[in-house]
């Protein structure tokens, strides 16, 4: 495919989600939580309620806009946590080597062995449902791939001239890691984080389905979809629109990640999966 197709479409979809989230207060017609009138519950899409209303009589369109805020928060914050943990561990392990490397490797293997959904489920069970718990759960779950990538990228950078030169010029280890290594491994890490945002949004939906997601009144797409799954027959719009929102947002993140990778890392080092 032509260079940048993924990047453009992915970027556009992601930008759409970001705009929807940022501009929700202005774009939304109603308050996502308080404008609930049971008298106007389950209305099909019309001029007032563009995407119809849900069982509580809330405007699905407005809720999807606000839901973008939640999904973005979930995606971004969890990936920031993942990335920080993964990069800190992976980079330092590769740089220092020795027992620390063995330890980090062991830990990574452990994390890889526990399926992420199950680990998130366990963490959510401990912390209880809710946004903060979800951020922590997803933030703690998926750092192992980032860690592996940070580690292998650092390993290959470590023997490069400019890193060795920095050592001979008297840079301290942390300085080398921050100024010489980190900027140069950010590419693949960023790709992972972007792809991770998509899976975080999906995980949120899956956890919602299992009763452990973010729960109302926050209008998260996952919980909207979960709530609506029984209404497919009587009020299909309540399920279709959040479903599409998830699909397109995740598609956007995935395409953006693919596009970034095509750009930064043409040899697919980033994602063996």
């Amino acid at each position, binding site marked *: 495919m032509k260079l940048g197709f993924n990047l453009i479409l992915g970027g556009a979809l992601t930008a759409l989600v970001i705009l929807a989230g940022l501009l929700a207060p202005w774009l939304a017609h109603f308050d996502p*939580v*308080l*404008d*609930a*009138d*049971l*008298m106007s*519950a389950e209305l099909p899409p019309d001029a007032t309620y563009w995407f119809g209303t849900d*069982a*509580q*009589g809330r405007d699905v369109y407005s809720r999807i806009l606000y839901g973008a805020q939640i999904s973005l928060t979930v995606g971004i914050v969890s990936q920031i946590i993942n990335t920080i943990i993964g990069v800190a561990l992976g980079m330092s392990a590769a740089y220092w080597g020795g027992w620390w490397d063995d330890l980090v490797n062991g830990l990574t293997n452990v994390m890889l062995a526990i399926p992420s959904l199950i680990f998130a489920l366990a963490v959510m*069970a401990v912390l*209880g*449902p*809710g946004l903060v718990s979800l951020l922590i759960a997803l933030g703690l779950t998926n750092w192992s791939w980032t860690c592996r990538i940070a580690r292998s990228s650092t390993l290959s950078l470590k023997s490069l001239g400019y890193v060795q030169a920095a050592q001979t010029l008297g840079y301290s280890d942390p300085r080398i890691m921050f100024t010489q290594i980190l900027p140069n491994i950010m590419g693949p890490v960023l790709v992972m984080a972007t792809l991770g945002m998509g899976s975080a949004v999906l995980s949120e939906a899956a956890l919602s389905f299992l*009763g*452990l997601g973010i*729960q*109302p*009144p926050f209008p998260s797409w996952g919980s909207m979809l979960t*709530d609506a*799954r*029984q*209404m*497919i*027959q*009587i009020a299909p719009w309540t399920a279709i629109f959040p479903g599409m929102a998830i699909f397109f947002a995740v598609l956007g993140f995935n395409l953006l990640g693919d596009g970034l990778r095509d750009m930064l890392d043409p040899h697919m080092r980033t994602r063996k999966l």
Partner: protein
Amino acid sequence: EEPRQGGTFNFTAPYGSSFATLDTHASPNIQEEFITQAIHRSLYAWDSNNNAPVPELATSVDESEDGLVYTYHLRKDAKFHNGKALTADDIIYSYKRIADPKNAFPGASYVAIIKGVDDFAAGKSEDISGLKKVDDNTLEITFASPVNPGFSLMQNTTAIYPSNVEDEATFATAPVGLGPFVFKEHIPGSQLVVEKFGDFYEEGKPYLDRVNIILMSEDSARDVAFRNKEIDVSVLGPTQYQAYQQDDALKDNLLEVAEVFTRNIGFNPKVEALRDKRVRQAINHAINTPLIVERLVKNKAYPASGWLPISSPAFDKDKAPYAFDPDKAKELLKEAGYENGFTFEVTASPNESWGVPIVEAILPMLQKVGITVKPKPVESSALGEAVTTNNFEAFIWSNQTGPDPLAAMRCYWSKTAQSACNYTSYSNPEFDKLYEAARDERDPTRQTDLLRQANNLVQDDAPVWFFNYNKAVMAYQPWVHGLAPNANELALQPYEDIWIDDSAPDNRK
């Protein structure tokens, strides 16, 4: 119409995706009752037509003057699936097994009404002194206090097991009982199969050859399966109830019953504002309960006018529910000094009918009178803990309020522990007086009257927001006959009465 013999009935167990154990003594959960209903029998059974427990395994019962000693003349035609005939020994054996502290069975609290169970449980005695075998077919039970033993001894956790099974561990995998169906096969997490018991004591029953009790907790999946005619009955949630009512093909085959659960939001007096009766009443006035019941719960419930449900003998038809009246609510709040409102948190599980969605619905309503509600979502399993450890500001729950009204009202007795069921730490000396009087009253009408007064007192005090009484709805395929409107739990059906007619799909006939 003459019941047709034979056929396979595909029943669904909708409340969880697995049976914990087939040893019904060990599990208090509704899910296991679906099996018990087919395989086991207890001393008493629930008569759904008269809403009262009746003796099941005894042909007649003699009651002593003081109401403490009951003599049961056991039926002679009852046989266990392993061929053993029912004798008094089996009952004594079963109750001892249930009361055995080593087992820590949940049914222990039910058999605790029998005299001598305390000593037995404490290890002071080898036997339960209240259980006396007169002869093989006669059993005398002495109770610790004059209660109606039927409510306790009809439970699935007090089912009667045969006393001649060597290895008790096999009850968990290959149960043996007195019921109309014999355990055939269990595919854990999927289904349980039972087959007709030829020696069942009721003549001509059961009609069915085979019952598949299929595990299906996911509502939407169950919906598809039912419409696809893969299952014969389905318990409906509100959304589906509405959908089925609108569907010509389905609307005629719905079985509805008012169950004995009261959905409510319990207020914790720990919260300053909620300690004020006027505030609690204001909340009751501020919420448009009928609207929520109609629109959100899709009429799959009856607005609650008090603690005791409609089917309860002590239900007061004349007591008006709290009217929806936001102005009154504001007034009450002003009186109480909360005209600027306050905030409280409602601990809620994800349940569709009595969980977070309901909190979401009351949220804008209360906001209009200045009260800010914050849902605090928890898992179902954590809800019980939060409530019983008094770790909440308010909670939304569905509590069993029947069939025994005395037991239901006991929850507001100030001597009942908060953790036991006085979750709102309710304490009103006036109520205590009424409750104690009712407890000691032997005349059923007078007792009912006292309980009604107590119930109305609670309604007035509004320790909870009275939301609704559950209406259970079961959809069934047109070829299914013999379903019973069981107010305790609609999903529990008398399999022995059910039969299917010729219009059933061929592979199930």
